[in-house]
């Protein structure tokens, strides 16, 4: 009896969790998206009107494309920055490895808003960076604050710790002695990296990329505080539907579209990557 209860409990808990906090809200969002809202009231008429609006009004498409471009750029930058950092920690961190990794998570101890505001202070028109430039007699940088560049800096700053942690964990699980084996059998250090290290950590890298990419798509705070007039991103526009505009049904439709796009991307990536070729067996080690 005990033997049967254990798997039921261990698999049951996440199931309840997922159904309660993920599937049900998702279903309600889909339902809400085919209703409409008028004067802050939900009207239960089935129509695809919200989707029509999203498809025909150019602004939403612009936001989505801009968000995809932003998320791609930010995730790429995060991955490129995170790799050498994580690799350096695994190679040279010694007994401070864990501490160094935790240090990367220190920004999480403060709220997201606070961190964004801090960046504003750093990059703003009268911020630390421009103050420094002015005191040196140089012209202040106008391109940085209230542009998409500022949003990107903010997003990189927000999500870099996550990507570093995920890639670090992947590298921690990677047997460095395989590199010894590769070099013994004639691979130069660079060759060994591309033959062994990169493919065996590709899975971890993709997870890190995705954990940056997907929240970037729906980011609201960074574009709002740093982005400026041309910086509206999809997630920010979506949040507005639930806030100021009160057009919840349209917001729900935007959420459904966002979910579909994210899902599509995950499927495409899963299709492109052969997990076997990343050493991933799905059964743990050995």
């Amino acid at each position, binding site marked *: 009896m005990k033997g049967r209860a254990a798997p039921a409990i261990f698999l049951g808990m996440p199931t309840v969790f997922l159904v309660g906090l993920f599937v049900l809200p998702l279903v309600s969002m889909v339902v809400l998206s085919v209703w409409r809202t008028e004067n802050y009231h939900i009207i239960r008429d089935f129509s695809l009107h919200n989707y029509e609006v999203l498809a025909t009004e150019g602004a939403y498409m612009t936001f989505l494309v801009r968000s995809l471009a932003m998320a791609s750029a930010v995730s790429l930058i995060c991955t490129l920055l995170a790799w050498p950092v994580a690799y350096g920690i695994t190679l040279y961190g010694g007994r401070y490895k864990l501490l160094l990794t935790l240090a990367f998570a220190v920004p999480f101890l403060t709220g997201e808003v606070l961190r964004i505001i801090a960046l504003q202070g750093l990059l703003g028109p009268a911020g630390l960076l421009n103050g420094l430039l002015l005191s040196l007699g140089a012209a202040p940088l106008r391109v940085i604050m209230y542009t998409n560049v500022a949003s990107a800096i903010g997003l990189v700053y927000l999500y870099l710790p996550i990507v570093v942690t995920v890639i670090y964990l992947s590298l921690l699980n990677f*047997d460095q*002695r*395989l590199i*010894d*084996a*590769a*070099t*013994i*059998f*004639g*691979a*130069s*250090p660079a*060759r060994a990296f591309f*033959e*062994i290290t990169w*493919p*065996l950590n590709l899975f971890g890298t993709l997870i890190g990329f995705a954990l940056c990419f997907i929240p970037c798509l729906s980011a609201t705070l960074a574009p709002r505080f740093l982005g400026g007039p041309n910086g509206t991103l999809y997630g920010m526009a979506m949040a507005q539907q639930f806030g100021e505009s009160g057009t919840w049904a349209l917001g729900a439709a935007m959420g459904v579209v966002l979910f579909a796009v994210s899902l599509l991307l995950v499927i495409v990536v899963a299709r492109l990557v052969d997990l*076997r*070729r*990343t*050493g991933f*067996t799905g*059964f743990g080690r*050995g």
Partner: protein
Amino acid sequence: MAYIHLDGVSKQYGSVWAVDRADMAIGKQEFVSLLGPSGSGKTTLLRIIAGLERPTQGRVLIDGEDVTELPPHRRGVAMVFQEFLLFPHRTVYENLAFPLRMLKLPKGEIEARVEWAVGILALRGLEKRYPNQLSGGQQQRVALGRGLVGRPKVLLLDEPLANLDRELRQEMEVEIRKHQTDLGIPFIYVTHNQEEALSMSDRIAVVRGGRIEDFASRTAIYDHPRTAFIAQFVGRSNRFTGTALISQGKTALCDHGVRIESAARPDIADGKRIAAYVKNEKIQLKPAAEMPADAANTLTATIRYVLLRGAYAEYVLGWTGGEIIVSRPRSEAAFAQGAEVACFWNEADIDLFPMTEDGR
């Protein structure tokens, strides 16, 4: 002319010398074992030859070329690791082809050589499998094949059989020796297992505390240990201790009334503490009644247990000085538990060593 030379190779970690002035000359067709307990520095020495570690001092020469400063991938060596270290994201075929691809061989040549390795190592039909779909023995075969396909100047083996069970290990010992003989390339084999070292090697270097205690043919290492450590570590021996007595051209010692008498050892001074080692299988047994009890190199003992080891019977005997172990072929008359027996051995089978300060 030796093919591989180690010239005063030393490696320092902090204040510890993991390898201390190792000198070796290894021939082109030789199978050499580095035998020593764990932590003796034998693996470090192997990694220095591979180029995975840089020696603090000394030089490594392979085929007349000083490779001390060369990185591993330019040395033309290959290695078989204890943990196999097959590439988990590559099939058996791709693992075997890896060294050949790095050598930039033409495709046809790669296919032919992988085919050859698959053939000699009985891996046919497994080419498309991934390492985690193979048994331990199969993984070890692939690791060995990956070491051989590139026709390295030397194959380094780091405890390659330690993770296999006994039966498989003995099978692989035959196989490894066979491939070495067929290919005519030197193998340097690191192990802490004396049976492996004795079964395959031409010569054995016994490593202890970073130093090579002796480097000699396996028969010399076994039959004529040069140091007490080797006598204790290689083969299984019984140890007697006492004070050296020199008389009538003999060097002798007395341990609990048993006189152990060997040919004269002019290097051992009278009155010095010495230890005598007699290998288990060099001690012979007779019923106690048939032997004069007071003769030299003889002791009377009682059989406590008999362990059956296939072709051999291992007797654990109690005597006044403690316990000794004797192994005898089953073809000889057997003794039962509790029997009183006389143990005796030849003068020539005694290895005498002066004892060190710490009583060893």
